[in-house]
């Protein structure tokens, strides 16, 4: 009798113990529900992970993209955060600086050393701050130049511009006043703003910079020769009327709609342009080339998300397993099918990329793409650069003065974090 009872108690303890041994980690992401990524995540990726790791359960929490930052801020202050977060790359240094992210190169040194070199350099650089890496790249993107074949052929052109000189020439040819009312209604180029996301391709392709390679200096970089020429060129194009008004804000026909409706001949766009344009204009033809090369080559801007582990997580090891899994070759390849660009070098020349209708040009562009300076003060630097370009293009300030002033302000920001 007593033996029986003791055995039962033992089994009960073991059962409870086993239940407790299952760790649950929460994964915060911004994949929109009803999207391909979300369905893939919940139908295949997570279940397969849980099968391979029976002691780990992953609970995914969808956060609206426009709220993620607020959620992270409020969550940090209250100590309530997911274990693993899919975080916009430009936020990583800021959260790393306030010690909210796990430095994976220290805590999981051995594993990290093994996987580090498999990542594309641009995306990987966005995880770094003060010499340590605070997560791994998860998905990336960049912007390339879309050109409208119909409008091009109307002026006798058959291919997108390869160099900056060609671009300038084409922009002029493609700007027209079609209904004779004194205002242009077709433009050579259109974009949505003057912040670094839109202007880094210009700056770096002209051989200019924002910060230096250690992200500690602005003087001589923000206001370098190349930077000045880039800004001057865009200003001249705008003054001549070859660039649509949307670049200075004020709303109007969006770049995608304008491209599809044959109003804008060339625009900058990321890979999301394809599903968005086709969603509204199912028969639209989309052609893309890498950004026209200037003295700095063809450089574009890196976007994307990193996958990070929070310091408040009580399941760091389990979280790391999930992070490794999400950045593994198979999972990255699976995400290609739902239009998430991979961050692994091993996939650049993979069949699935080559056969992809449009990823190839992006992967090509990515090999030389530039990250927005990974610095906790980036939001301020971003606003300063945006303002500098607006001062020149909207308010006619001098190019050199504007950039010199920007240097002054940026140096102050950099000093805050030294």
């Amino acid at each position: 009798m007593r033996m029986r009872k003791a055995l039962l108690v033992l089994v009960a303890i073991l059962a409870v113990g086993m239940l407790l041994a299952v760790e649950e980690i929460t994964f915060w992401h911004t994949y929109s529900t009803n999207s391909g990524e979300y369905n893939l995540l919940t139908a295949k990726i997570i279940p397969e992970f849980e099968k391979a790791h029976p002691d780990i359960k992953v609970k995914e929490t969808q956060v609206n993209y426009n709220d993620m930052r607020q959620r992270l801020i409020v969550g940090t202050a209250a100590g309530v955060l997911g274990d693993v977060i899919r975080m916009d790359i430009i936020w990583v240094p800021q959260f790393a600086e306030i010690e909210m992210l796990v430095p994976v190169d220290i805590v999981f040194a051995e594993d990290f050393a093994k996987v580090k070199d498999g990542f594309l350099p641009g995306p990987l650089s966005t995880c770094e701050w003060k010499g340590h890496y605070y997560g791994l790249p998860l998905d990336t993107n960049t912007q390339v130049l879309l050109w409208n074949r119909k409008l091009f052929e109307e002026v006798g052109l058959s291919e997108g511009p390869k160099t900056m000189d060609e671009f300038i020439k084409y922009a002029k040819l493609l700007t027209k006043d079609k209904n004779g009312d004194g205002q242009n209604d077709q433009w050579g180029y259109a974009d949505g703003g003057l912040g670094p996301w839109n202007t880094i391709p210009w700056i770096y392709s002209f051989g200019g910079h924002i910060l230096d390679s250690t992200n500690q200096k602005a003087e001589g970089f923000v206001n370098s020769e190349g930077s000045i020429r880039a800004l001057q060129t865009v200003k001249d194009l705008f003054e001549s009327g070859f660039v649509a008004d949307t670049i200075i804000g004020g709303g109007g026909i969006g770049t995608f709609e304008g491209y599809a409706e044959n109003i804008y001949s060339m625009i900058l766009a990321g890979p999301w342009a394809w599903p968005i344009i086709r969603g509204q204009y199912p028969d639209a033809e989309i052609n893309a080339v890498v950004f026209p090369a200037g003295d700095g080559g063809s450089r574009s801007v890196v976007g994307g998300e990193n996958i990070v582990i929070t310091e408040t997580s009580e399941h760091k090891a389990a979280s790391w397993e999930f992070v490794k899994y999400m950045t593994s070759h198979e999972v990255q390849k699976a995400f290609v099918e739902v239009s998430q660009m991979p961050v692994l070098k091993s996939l650049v020349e993979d069949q699935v990329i080559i056969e992809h209708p449009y990823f190839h040009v992006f992967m090509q562009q990515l090999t030389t793409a530039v990250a927005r300076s990974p610095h906790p003060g980036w939001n301020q630097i971003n606003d300063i650069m945006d303002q500098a370009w607006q001062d020149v293009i909207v308010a006619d300030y001098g190019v050199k003065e504007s950039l010199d002033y920007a240097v002054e302000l940026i140096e102050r920001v950099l000093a805050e974090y030294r």
Partner: protein
Amino acid sequence: MIFQGCTDLTRETRRKWAGLLFVLPGMLAYLVWTIYPIFNGFYMSLFKWNLNPRIPNEFIGLSNYVKLFQDPQFYVALSNTIKYAVITVPFQLVLGLLVAVLLNRGKKGQTLFRLLYYLPVITSWVVVSVLFQYLFATRGGMINFLLKDVLHLIKTDIKWLAQTSTAMIPIYTLGIWKGIGWTMLIFLAGLQSIPKQLYEAARIDGAGGWKLFAKITMPLLRPTFVFQLVMLTIGGFNVFLSVLIMTGGGPRNSTQVLNTYMFKEAFEYFHFGYGAAIAVVFFIMVFTISQLQRRFLKSDPY
């Protein structure tokens, strides 16, 4: 006599306790929910506050305030906010009152009109801000379309939201448009509480339209009017979402208001102590103004 006095005294005490009991639940709940966080905010402003609660905060006393008063961006935000309140509040009050008076006459179609005028109030700020952004778009926007192609009042499209000189106009318009229904609603409630016989008595005495309005309606609406003035001013100072969505503070910071400035400093740059200081100064200002309004326009109906 003395007996009467004793009963009165007890009644006074009874009523005092009753009064306290009436207000206590609301006040207590409010104390915990709102007043404690406000003190928290005051406290935050004295530090170089770190979002991460596990990192100790550096006490810097009034440095944030010193920095604030030397910050040109603060003054831009301040003047924009004041201008917004000064422009939108009177329009909302006057137009709202006008519509309320017109819709209080018991004529046909009133219910429908009241509904239509109320519609802007019930739409969310996020949605209408985006909508107005489209309406005021330089090319393809409704407003330019109407002014240029339909009414032929202007020759070229106005770059409403892209130039510093005109960027606030769509924002003012949105604020006024959205508020008229609200003031109308409250004035209607106020108008309804004026006893009809006051008008009848005055009419018998020979008073007509305007006089009735000036001598009866306006004075009796005073409490409502003061209430609305205070609330709209507070609301005006609190303008936030419309600016954030329509211009983000631009172009070139020309539409920055106190709330968007605070939001930027705190939530985007992580300068939480500084943001709290902005909030404290904001609060003191708005509080003072509303108190002054209440004092100078103290209601005296009968």
